[in-house]
């Protein structure tokens, strides 16, 4: 996935507090403190709470959206879900369905559990029941004719389909040929709005081509007749999808419902279906096991539930202007994901001192611990611990063996003393590794860290490290950072030829710095020890 530049990194670090407060911008790949990235199918709860039965987005102003709550009425947000307010004046609180007049988005309709249909003409400020002629007041689905928004259909439980042509002032049942009167889903052909599909509780899918005057069942291949959700491909309206509740499948028809086939199954009973208006081969399904996504027209599905703390998904809505923004209504409130277009991918980041180290970084710095500073040759040791962060939506596998590998000119001067665990959990999971710098020679010592992983565009993750080898302290022959009697004995042993000593020991034992190690060094060192 895309990385930030060094300039972006500095900016991000400098404005850490601001970023933490604002949850970072979409596409930001630096996991500050290893925060999960928004924009990788990560859901965020945005409220309101309660059992969300319906979601509707204003097509003209997509930052305005409505949530229908069972027992809670309707909540409205005008800022993309950042804040919500209840708009229930005159409304039955048990809302099951919502619809917006596409031509006049301030006109809303709410289908309720036992109060029929309610209408608002001022964006939800006031509601009034519009039930004249409605044969059943348990309204599970609403559909507005996109070409003639005065025409509205209501799917009811027990009363079949009712139709109004005057924005709800009067209704009439349009059930001729309808095989089951428990209608839980409606879908209107956007190109030929007189063609309408009804999903029924046990009768499968019924289709009308004359605006409801007559219906016929279209169930060939539809092996699960309990249909709770329907969507039509806006680009190819003969293609439609039916989400079923009996087994829990999504069926597809490419011939206007004449025949159906099922792709690979999703996880659970289908409550809601959604189609990406910009990329109709992308679909989303809301189930009791969360949200599944298909990018191949329903052939295959995968769960996208990171951050979705309530998996009872009852409603879905998509921003028509930014189809990567998705809303999910659950039994535990509303959730939002701002980049559901992204795939389920890991996102590797390596941090030192909490600062992101850009992949490929070749300029070691003390700020991110890639510069280990100074250490005495052969005797000094400096440990730095780094954090591997997975800010993505899929777990990150570190596939190397060992997982962190040293390379470069002075690789042997750096040793991984603690290897990271693998895999690294998604959504901000971390794994630590520690590198010990123990220089074998004087001067700058450089190496490269390489971490093989399954983040496709950052594999391997590499960066440079360095440290500076310094002479050991004179007199500290045993390299324990203390000059004492033990060093005197070693010095004496070297001076007397009993031991040879490494070059570093010889350097340290040459206490008077005259280029050799003799009894004078031992005496001088002993004098230093008794007169510290």
């Amino acid at each position, binding site marked *: 996935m895309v990385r930030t530049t060094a300039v972006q990194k500095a900016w991000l670090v400098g404005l850490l507090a601001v970023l933490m407060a604002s949850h970072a911008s979409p596409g930001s790949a630096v996991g500050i403190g290893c925060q999960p990235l928004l924009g990788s199918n990560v859901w965020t709860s945005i409220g309101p709470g309660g059992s969300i039965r319906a979601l509707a987005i204003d097509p003209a102003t997509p930052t305005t959206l409505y949530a229908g709550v069972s027992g809670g009425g309707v909540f409205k947000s005008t800022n993309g879900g950042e804040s919500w307010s209840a708009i229930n004046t005159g409304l039955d609180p048990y809302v099951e369905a919502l619809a917006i007049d596409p031509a006049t988005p301030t006109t809303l309709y709410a289908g309720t559990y036992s109060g029929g249909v309610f209408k608002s003409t001022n964006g939800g400020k006031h509601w009034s029941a519009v039930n004249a002629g409605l044969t059943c007041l348990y309204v599970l689905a609403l559909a507005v004719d996109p070409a003639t928004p005065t025409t509205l259909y209501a799917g009811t439980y027990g009363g079949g389909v009712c139709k109004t042509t005057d924005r709800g002032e009067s209704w009439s049942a349009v059930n001729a040929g309808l095989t089951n009167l428990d209608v839980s889903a409606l879908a209107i052909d956007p190109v030929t709005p007189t063609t309408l599909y009804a999903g029924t509780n046990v009768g499968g899918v019924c289709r009308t081509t004359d605006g409801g005057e007559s219906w016929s069942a279209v169930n060939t291949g539809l092996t699960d007749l309990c249909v709770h959700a329907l969507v039509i491909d806006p680009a190819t309206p003969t293609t439609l999808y039916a989400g079923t509740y009996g087994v829990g499948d999504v069926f597809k028809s490419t011939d206007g419902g004449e025949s159906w086939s099922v792709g690979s199954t999703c996880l659970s009973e289908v409550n809601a279906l959604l189609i990406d208006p910009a990329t109709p081969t992308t679909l989303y399904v809301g189930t009791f096991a969360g949200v599944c996504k298909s990018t191949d027209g329903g052939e295959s599905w995968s769960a996208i539930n990171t951050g979705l703390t309530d998996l009872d998904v009852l409603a879905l809505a998509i921003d028509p202007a930014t189809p990567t923004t998705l809303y999910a209504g659950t039994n535990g409130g509303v959730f939002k994901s701002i980049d559901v277009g992204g795939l389920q991918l890991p996102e590797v980041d390596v941090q030192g001192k909490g600062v992101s180290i850009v992949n490929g970084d070749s300029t070691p710095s003390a700020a991110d611990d890639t510069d280990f500073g100074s250490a005495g040759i052969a005797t000094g040791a400096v440990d730095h611990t780094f954090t591997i962060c997975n800010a993505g939506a899929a777990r990150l596998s570190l596939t190397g063996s060992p997982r962190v590998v040293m390379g470069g000119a002075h690789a042997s001067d750096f040793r991984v003393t603690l290897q990271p665990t693998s895999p690294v959990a998604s959504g901000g999971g971390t794994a630590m590794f520690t590198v010990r710098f123990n220089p074998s020679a004087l001067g700058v010592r450089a190496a490269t860290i390489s971490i093989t992983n399954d983040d496709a565009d950052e594999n391997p993750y590499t960066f440079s490290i360095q440290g500076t080898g310094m002479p050991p302290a004179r007199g500290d022959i*045993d390299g324990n950072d203390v000059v*004492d*009697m*033990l060093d*005197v*004995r*070693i010095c*004496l*042993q070297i*001076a*007397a030829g*009993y031991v040879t000593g490494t070059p570093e020991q010889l350097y340290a034992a040459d206490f008077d710095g005259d280029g050799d190690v003799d*009894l004078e060094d*031992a*005496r001088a*060192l*002993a*004098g230093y*020890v*008794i*007169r*510290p």
Partner: protein
Amino acid sequence: MARRNWRLMAVLTGGVAVSLVLAACAGFWNTGPKLGTLVVGPVVVTGPDGYVRISVTDMREGGLAAIQLGIVGDEAITFSDIDPVSVAIEGKNEFVVLAQDFATNPGKGTLLAATPGTAVVAGEILKLVFKITGPNPTLTVAKSKVTLASDSNAIISVWNLSAKAY
């Protein structure tokens, strides 16, 4: 009555025998490896001169390889009626005196000596020779300020200090 005395004597004899057995057993259980000991001998006076021998016995971890008797300002050696300027130290068994100070602080002394070769398990390591300046010359060593090193250049942490003559 005589028979009664005889029985009393038998009981007492048995008790003594049991006591002897128990004492022997106690001695047996107390028998263990001897602790390494640094022996600082007494001041031996011969006319105007005197000396002190320092030796070790049963020294562990390969023997004693180095010894430090405090530092200047926190000396391990305390002496009296001894001329500090006259103090000369002879190394024994390959021990080499590398540093010493008996003049900085009155009545106090320190030294550091080591052997480059084989450590000493038992035997004399140092002999301090000096002029005496009074009738009661003394030289004592504070164990807490003494550091001993083994043949492998590690600190010997468990040892005894003895002031008995070697």
